């Protein structure tokens, strides 16, 4: 029987698929896509067994998770284990990663069909999943960091998958470098934690922190640095700029990045280290909340004007990630993980449905789409489910999760924060409604594209429909009865929690406010964009500066570009001058020149005449003999 101690198999399977595809890919039938799908699916099946094992252990009583591993490095007293920790938090993550991953892989067989690097795509995707699973299971920060970087590297490979396109290559670089800025902080944070505790093991660090091993300021600094890593990876303001550009990758990659891997890694990491955030100064969680709020509001407003269908969905991801971070800022791990869980399904759904649209029409600007519901009814329906989940309309899964977050925020934060989060719910309803209306209803704007539009093939449609069904029902895990029927101890609040199991409550005030804001949002979207979309155009003209501000993404990219051009490059020029003049000309060339010069001068000592050399040898021997004699006597 496969149990929790076999956790190491989970990342090994996709990694093995990666190695085999890398070495033998071109010689396998169908370039080995079946192998990659099989490996990920096997991981999911394995995970199901491990989950059953976990639930069995939960029934027996208190459970802390199972850790297993081998020695990795050992230098004297410094020693690191390659360890895996399987607990409830990891289980929720793995459910999303392996299940959604499998569906995305199946979807890819259709979307990537005929691509010249079809096999390599599956190899890189396998490595991506393997890295993510390792990240989730890691029981120490060092392994977590290694997997973290593995995820970043795979995102670079996959965002730049079509690297012949300059924009794709640059988006890949942007994603890699931007997240790297946060990763530097993350690494420093890990080293700070290790320096005091002497261990990388997460649980041992918790124990050390709870015993008061860190001073409060030190711990605050360390967790803020950890959070810097999450800011980069989970695309929070101000390092969010890479995520919209990451749309340059193939759509399955976007789905994988947004739903199952990569961006949720930061959320997961913060949830994992929540005890440290809790022990640190409240300022740490306040920073988390503030940045998350900025992210939410920026992304929601930017989503109102963007015209690229994938880009709008990407802004919705920023929005969702902000929501998760706000929940974490309110110490509500349950709500964050619940949202992460359902978000994995409906976000993958949105991307794959958007991918179907792109695949069917070869267009991805909504200004060239429209009226596609008639041509692609199933995709339209599935996208509608995803959009409503994202907009958080009752009874779709997004509603329950977002309600949990609203509840958590309202109990831990002041009214302003709650109001802003609620306002973002309204905004997300508006832009998701807008996206659906512009894409699937009204009159087609590009008749050529419309004529050629067709419904996606079964291997692309089936994963979408499966996800649509799950997106409808996944939120019901908020009820104890549903959880118990599935074998869990109850609702998700009793499965994943920080400190104490909790009931998920739905104060009617919040629920009503949430429902009303969503309905109003959808209504506004319908009023503004339905049909000819005249109100929207009028508003755009009327508030042109605001429209421009949103269209240019608050000029964050431009600001960064200015900083890079004026400050980073100026500094770079100074350093380059220092390198050229001081290091190279003086240091390197200088010593070489000195050696050359002395050699050039000294070579004239060489007469080339044998007697001179003989004289020198004799004199040297005489002196040596005299010295030896003197020493003896």
């Amino acid at each position, binding site marked *: 029987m496969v149990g929790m101690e076999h956790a190491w198999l989970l990342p090994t399977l996709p990694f093995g698929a990666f190695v085999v595809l890398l070495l033998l890919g071109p010689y396998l039938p169908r370039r080995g896509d079946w192998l990659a799908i099989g490996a990920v699916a096997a991981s999911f099946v394995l995970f199901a067994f491990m989950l059953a094992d976990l639930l069995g252990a939960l029934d027996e009583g208190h459970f802390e998770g199972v850790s297993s591993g081998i020695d990795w490095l050992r230098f004297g007293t410094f020693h690191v284990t390659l360890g895996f920790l399987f607990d409830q938090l990891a289980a929720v993550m793995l459910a999303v990663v392996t299940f959604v991953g499998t569906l995305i892989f199946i979807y890819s067989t259709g979307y990537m069909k005929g691509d010249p690097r079809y096999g390599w795509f599956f190899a890189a995707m396998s490595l991506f999943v393997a890295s993510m699973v390792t990240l989730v299971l890691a029981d120490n920060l060092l392994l977590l960091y290694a997997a973290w970087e593995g995820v970043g590297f795979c995102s670079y490979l996959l965002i730049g998958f079509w690297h012949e396109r300059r924009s794709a290559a640059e988006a890949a670089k942007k994603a890699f470098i931007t997240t790297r800025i946060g990763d530097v902080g993350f690494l420093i944070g890990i080293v700070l934690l290790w320096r005091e505790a002497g261990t990388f093991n997460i649980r041992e660090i918790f124990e050390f922190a709870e015993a008061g091993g860190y001073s409060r300021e030190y711990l605050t600094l360390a967790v803020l640095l950890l959070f810097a890593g999450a800011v980069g990876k989970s695309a929070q303001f101000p390092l969010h700029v890479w995520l919209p550009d990451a749309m340059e990758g193939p759509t399955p990659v976007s789905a994988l990045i947004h739903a199952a891997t990569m961006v949720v890694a930061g959320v997961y990491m913060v949830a994992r280290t929540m005890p440290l955030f809790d022990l640190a100064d409240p300022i740490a969680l306040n920073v988390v909340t503030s940045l998350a709020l900025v992210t939410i509001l920026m992304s929601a407003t930017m989503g109102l004007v963007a015209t690229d269908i994938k880009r709008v969905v990407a802004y919705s991801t920023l929005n969702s990630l902000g929501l998760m971070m706000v929940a974490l800022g309110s110490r509500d791990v349950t709500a964050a993980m619940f949202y992460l869980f359902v978000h994995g399904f409906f976000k993958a759904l949105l991307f794959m449905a958007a991918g179907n649209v792109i695949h069917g029409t070869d267009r991805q600007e909504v200004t060239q789409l429209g009226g596609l519901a008639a041509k692609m009814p199933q995709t339209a329906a599935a996208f509608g489910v995803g959009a409503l989940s994202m907009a958080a309309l009752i009874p779709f899964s997004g509603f329950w999760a977002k309600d949990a977050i609203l509840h958590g925020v309202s109990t831990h934060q002041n009214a302003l924060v709650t109001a802003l989060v609620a306002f973002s719910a309204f905004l997300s309803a508006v832009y998701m409604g807008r996206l659906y209306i512009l894409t699937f209803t009204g009159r087609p704007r590009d008749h050529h594209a419309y004529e050629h539009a067709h419904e996606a093939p079964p291997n692309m449609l089936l994963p979408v429909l499966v996800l649509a069904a799950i997106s409808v029902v996944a939120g019901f895990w908020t009820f104890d009865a549903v959880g118990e029927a599935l074998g869990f101890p109850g609702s998700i609040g009793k499965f994943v929690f920080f400190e104490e199991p909790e009931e998920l409550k739905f104060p009617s005030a919040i629920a009503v406010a949430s429902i009303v804001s969503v309905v109003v949002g959808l209504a506004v979207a319908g009023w503004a964009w339905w049909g000819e979309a005249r109100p929207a155009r009028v508003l755009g003209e009327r508030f042109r500066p605001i429209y421009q501000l949103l269209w240019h993404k608050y000029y964050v990219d431009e600001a960064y570009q200015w900083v890079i051009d004026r400050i980073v490059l100026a500094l770079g020029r100074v350093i380059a001058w220092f390198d050229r003049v001081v290091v190279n000309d003086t240091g390197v060339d200088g010593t070489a020149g000195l050696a050359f010069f002395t050699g050039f001068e000294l070579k004239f000592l060489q007469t080339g005449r044998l*007697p001179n050399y003989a004289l020198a040898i004799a*004199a040297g021997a*005489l002196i040596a003999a005299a010295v030896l004699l003197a020493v003896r006597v």
Partner: protein
Amino acid sequence: MTLEEGIFYVVAAVTVLGGLGVVLARSVVYAALFLIVALLGVAGVFLLLAAEFLAIVQVLIYGAAVTILILFVLMLTRARDVPQAVDGPQKPFAFVLGSALLGLLVTAIVTTDWAALGATEQITLVPARELGRSLFRNWSVPFEVASLVLIVALVGAVILARMEEEEE
């Protein structure tokens, strides 16, 4: 002064005179002839040291073979035909260095307590038979190696000297 000492001084004087002739002679041929004198003198010293086998080897190899070889080369290189200074410009330095070396060596010899190192008063005669036994038993491997070196050197010398004829 005993008879032995008298003989030693005579032989030593001949040897040193020969050596002086080698390094001071104005003609290369004279220098070669002085070398023969010096070598024969050294053979006499060997006899005084009761190493008569080596004295014979010395006369045969050095006195005859080596000297004749040198004279042949002098003939072949016609060095005699070109009248020019035989000494180089660094002669004064050479003199200083040579004198300094001599002083150093004599100092070393005089200041060393030879009796303490186990120097005997008498010279024991070494029978040639014993020397031969030792050479071919205890020292057979170095002997063979030396033979090999000798033959390689001579073959090499022949090839070096002949190469040009083939080129032409």
